[in-house]
């Protein structure tokens, strides 16, 4: 399974996420997707956050497990899928580089998907298939 190893982030690989380059699938989403700020303005909605932000936050939290609440030094390596500080550091890096022109919270979502792919939790092809399945499901009504 793609998630079993942090294969793209092995200890011998010192490249930053930005140096490893963009991920084509996520570039597509970024280029095609309409951000909440624009959608809310178009439809006259005043909620500052998109409805999916709450579930995105939950995904980040649950992947980080106990690293959400433990001091960084006490987080046991491998005790969770994606430690909080690691993900946040990567999000900061990506927000300053590859996704510098993407609005919040869309860039948090792109950064999470980016980190999960680079960490080998799933791969780009798997995510592409899932996007297609979900898109089909949500748009059939």
């Amino acid at each position, binding site marked *: *399974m793609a*998630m079993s*190893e*942090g294969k793209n*982030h092995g*200890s011998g*690989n010192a490249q930053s996420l930005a140096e490893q380059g963009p991920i084509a699938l996520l570039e597509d*989403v970024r280029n*095609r*997707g*309409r*951000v*909440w700020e624009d*959608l809310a303005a*178009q*439809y*006259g*909605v*005043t*909620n500052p*956050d*998109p*409805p*999916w*932000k*709450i*579930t995105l*936050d*939950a*995904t980040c939290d*649950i*992947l980080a*497990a*106990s690293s*959400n609440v433990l001091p960084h030094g006490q987080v046991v*390596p*491998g005790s969770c*899928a*994606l430690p909080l500080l*690691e993900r946040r*550091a*990567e999000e900061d*890096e990506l927000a300053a580089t590859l996704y510098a022109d993407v609005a919040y919270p869309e860039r948090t*979502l792109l950064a*999470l*998907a980016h980190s*999960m792919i680079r*960490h*080998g*939790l*799933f791969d780009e092809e*798997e*995510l592409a298939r*899932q*996007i297609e*399945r*979900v*898109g089909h499901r*949500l748009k059939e*009504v």
Partner: protein
Amino acid sequence: MSEHHHEPAPMVDEVSDFEILEMAVRELAIEKGLFSAEDHRIWTEYVHTLGPTPAARLVAKAWLDPEYKNLCVTDGVEASKAVGVDWINSPPTHFGTPSDYCNLRVLEDTPTLKHVVVCTLCSCYPRPILGQSPEWYRTPNYRRRLVRWPRQVLAEFGLQLPSDVQIRVADSNQKTRYIVMPVRPAGTDGWSEDQLAEIVTRDCLIGVAVPKPGVTSNTMRPIHKAVHPVEHGHGH
């Protein structure tokens, strides 16, 4: 149940690629065994609500008192007074508009009948007794799909119902709001009203979850242990 006589609140009426990406990431993580749909729902609910709502208290009282339970089912507005909510005169939670304070119906689940609440037109919700609606309740995704494929949508919340359980979807409207009275779960014999109220979480009252001993909305922050721990070797 779906008559409306007021203008619905503005709603983003299209599915964005970002909304799809969020769901795809979440579902793929579930498929990979990193967490379950139900774990995720518990986590999402936690960040939305803390502490038992008046509606939870109503259900807990009804579980303990058959007479009160009968009142809940026949006259939800009158029954609400016992938990401090007067729908007609004094909305205690100060949520929403006067149009909220009209009529409450309590939908009683049985072992073979599961109720779940939606507002297909906008986002009508029993705010005086249940607080603010969660964001997902207001999405076209939930509103449109629940009435067509309730079993599938409930499964996405981590609630898999046996095929012999009938699902009834109640569509809220301007005058009438609904809460679900779930079946009292096994393992709660001898419990006090306070103990019972704690397990009747917001999602149980909407109907997308069922109460379970030990699962409360006001416990400590839930900690999800890694199912398949992953070793990361990168050096940031």
